[in-house]
């Protein structure tokens, strides 16, 4: 017999009615506020755009501001650009994102009044939109052991390379979900894989202390192993396309033996050896200004000049081993001249020019080229650096409760995402390192995360066998992707945003798409 609930008491009824009344009141902008004067500034150059414009407060939401700014710039209807607006307040130099409208971000908290002229800095957002991946397009068996690293080709989302514990790397055709090539040669686990910025070569680093180079198209080895390291390879970085000597790309490899070696890819010789770290080098990054950044177990980050192999700077602030580094320009450097339109310049000069333009676009803040660096460490913190201006950190990013394993900048440099062993992904402001939000949902350590090309989504891979796609702006879970049968070690979102590739302990590569 079903139990009949007693009718609600008077107190309950009153409370319910109260709640219903409260819920009806929506945050709306009062209509009697008149208008506010707005002056737009370009975030990259710091120059004002157009005259100060008077905008009715009731209508001053981001959508309308965007339309206004596009009109001021004389953009046609078909090449309108979406913008993000920030306000830099005069005191403390703090920046405020305009999330929905001016009233709720500036006027209501009392930062500005309608009497003032509001200066808004705008940054263009990606004109394309990446859809959240939602289904597993292919689960491809092939590797005989756990997959340790994956990377999409910068050219398109149709090829991906994965390194595995069965001492091979494999190239996959992601459109059909079939294997293309097996790169055999290493004698131990393949720990790191990296596509060259033009997508023609693949470098693999292995547990057998060697680096190998492969032709990405044909899947053949380019010469023998690059020997020199005394211990296994932990990380690889290609020289950015726009500073390469034409026809002579170089590659940096970091190793457990606490050295970094810069290889001439054509002659297969060591160009320079960067020695100085006292512990295993965990991560290497080659910046667009020509400097090499390395992070090590000896708690320091070192910056090198690869021309003569000299140490430029040592950044020491961490209290424990440094696990990972990310540059604000990582995405631009990785994809070089491949942009979202898919149009590739024909001759080499134009390619270099396009790559340089993309890098400069990404790195320019207030008219100067600034490369920011964020480092993740075992001391549960991260530091944001601006090595060109100071060897003191810009900000200390506190919040993780366990080791931070992975950190990455969003392609538009507005956000930093960090993945930690405390099951959380945290989002930080890319400019000043302020905490934004925590993405909770994983029930195991989060190993890696990757932004979509338009910086609006984030995918994270975890020990709990799932991938999760997050909406960065709202901090909500956009999609949960179960399917892997064991820990997911590596995940990558293709630079054109079409696909996500992941691999882990269950030995199968999975391709996800929308």
């Amino acid at each position: 017999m079903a139990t009949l609930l007693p009718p609600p008491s008077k107190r309950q009824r009153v409370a319910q009615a109260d709640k219903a009344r409260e819920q009806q009141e929506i945050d709306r902008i009062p209509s009697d506020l008149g208008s506010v004067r707005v002056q737009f500034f370009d975030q990259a150059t710091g120059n004002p755009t157009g005259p100060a414009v008077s905008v009715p407060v009731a209508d001053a939401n981001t959508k309308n501001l965007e339309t206004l700014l596009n009109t001021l710039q004389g953009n046609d209807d078909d090449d309108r650009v979406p913008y993000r607006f920030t306000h830099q307040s005069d005191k403390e130099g703090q920046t405020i994102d305009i999330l929905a409208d001016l009233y709720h971000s500036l006027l209501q908290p009392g930062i500005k009044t309608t009497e003032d002229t509001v200066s808004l800095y705008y940054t263009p957002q990606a004109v394309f939109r990446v859809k959240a991946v939602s289904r597993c397009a292919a689960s491809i068996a092939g590797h005989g052991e756990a997959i340790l690293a994956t990377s999409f080709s910068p050219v398109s989302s149709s090829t991906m390379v994965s390194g595995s514990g069965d001492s091979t790397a494999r190239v996959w055709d992601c459109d059909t979900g079939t294997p293309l090539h097996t790169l055999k040669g290493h004698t131990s686990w393949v720990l790191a894989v990296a596509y060259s910025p033009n997508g023609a070569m693949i470098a693999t680093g292995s547990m057998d202390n060697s680096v190998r180079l492969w032709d990405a198209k044909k899947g053949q080895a380019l010469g023998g192993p690059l020997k020199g390291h005394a211990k296994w390879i932990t990380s690889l970085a290609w020289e950015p396309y726009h500073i390469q000597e034409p026809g002579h790309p170089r590659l940096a490899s970091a190793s457990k033996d606490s050295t970094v070696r810069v290889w001439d890819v054509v002659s297969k010789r060591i160009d320079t050896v960067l020695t100085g770290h006292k512990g295993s080098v965990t991560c290497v990054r080659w910046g667009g200004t020509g400097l090499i950044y390395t992070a090590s177990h000896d708690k320091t980050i070192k910056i090198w000049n690869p021309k003569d192999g000299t140490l430029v700077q040592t950044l020491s602030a961490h209290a424990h081993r440094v696990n990972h580094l990310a540059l604000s320009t990582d995405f631009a450097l990785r994809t070089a001249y491949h942009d979202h339109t898919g149009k590739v310049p024909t001759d080499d000069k134009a390619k270099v020019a396009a790559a340089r333009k993309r890098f400069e676009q990404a790195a320019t803040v207030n008219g100067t080229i600034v490369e920011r660096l964020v480092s993740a460490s075992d001391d549960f913190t991260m530091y944001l650096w601006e090595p060109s201006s100071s060897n003191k950190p810009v900000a200390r990013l506190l919040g993780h409760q366990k080791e931070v394993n992975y950190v990455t900048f969003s392609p538009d440099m507005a956000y930093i995402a960090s993945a930690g062993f405390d099951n959380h992904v945290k989002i930080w402001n890319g400019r000043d390192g302020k905490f934004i939000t925590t993405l909770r949902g994983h029930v195991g350590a989060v190993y890696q995360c990757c932004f979509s090309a338009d910086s609006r989504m984030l995918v994270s891979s975890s020990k709990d066998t799932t991938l999760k796609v997050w909406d960065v702006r709202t901090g909500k879970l956009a999609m949960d992707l179960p399917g892997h049968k064991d820990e997911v070690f590596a995940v990558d979102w293709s630079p054109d945003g079409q696909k996500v590739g992941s691999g882990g302990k269950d030995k199968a590569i999975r391709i996800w798409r929308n």
Partner: protein
Amino acid sequence: MPQNEYIERWTKQHGKRLDHDERVRKRQARESHKQSHNAQNLTGLRAKLYQQKRHKEKIQMKKRIKEQEEKNVKSSAPDEPSKTPLPQYLLDRSQATNAKALSSAIKDKRNEKAAKFAVPLPKVKGISEEEMFKVVNTGKKTHQKSWKRMITKPTFVGSDFTRRPVKYERFIRPMGLRYKKANVTHPELGVTVQLPILSVKKNPQNPLYTQLGVLTKGTIMEVNVSELGLVTTSGKVVWGKWAQVTNVPENDGCVNAVLLV
């Protein structure tokens, strides 16, 4: 509240005696003296039992001392990376691999799609009702109708169970034969862990015994594996798993079981 935890309940309600800590300290300080006195003065069966108990305690003590010593010794050999492939960022980290080995073995097994409903002990010897139940004959009325039964086998009783009043209690499950934990072995790895029992799922003898939670050889029960850290494919932590009893608990005084994977 379980019926027998009245002391804990009292402490929760009223707190501890004011001199509780002092008394505990004194009791502990006196403990070695008391042990020595017992060892020297007990005679007969009591002495024998006491020596057995002491012997076991000493073994445990020695084990712990040894463990502690091993922990302090620094191994000179460089720690070799594990046999299973690990990504670069996990290489120099010491990890608790035990439970992980368990979980991956379970998943491998699931992949093979081995007979899903096969259990390690497919057949068991039947137990008659006469053997299982003892007729309780206390009191005049009970004696006349003989409706009350005492279960003579080990049982599992949930922690929130309270006994019915004497007048209505048809089956008595003796306190001394109740079990809360089982020694569960993982069949492939041969790892044995003591895990809490959650419920009895199936007693092959009789559905009634399932209801009563009787633990006999071949009984399927659910055990709490949350501390092993297994996760499902959808990323949730696995809580309960099934296990089959492999020994005759009434003979051994413990419940041994094998995990069904």
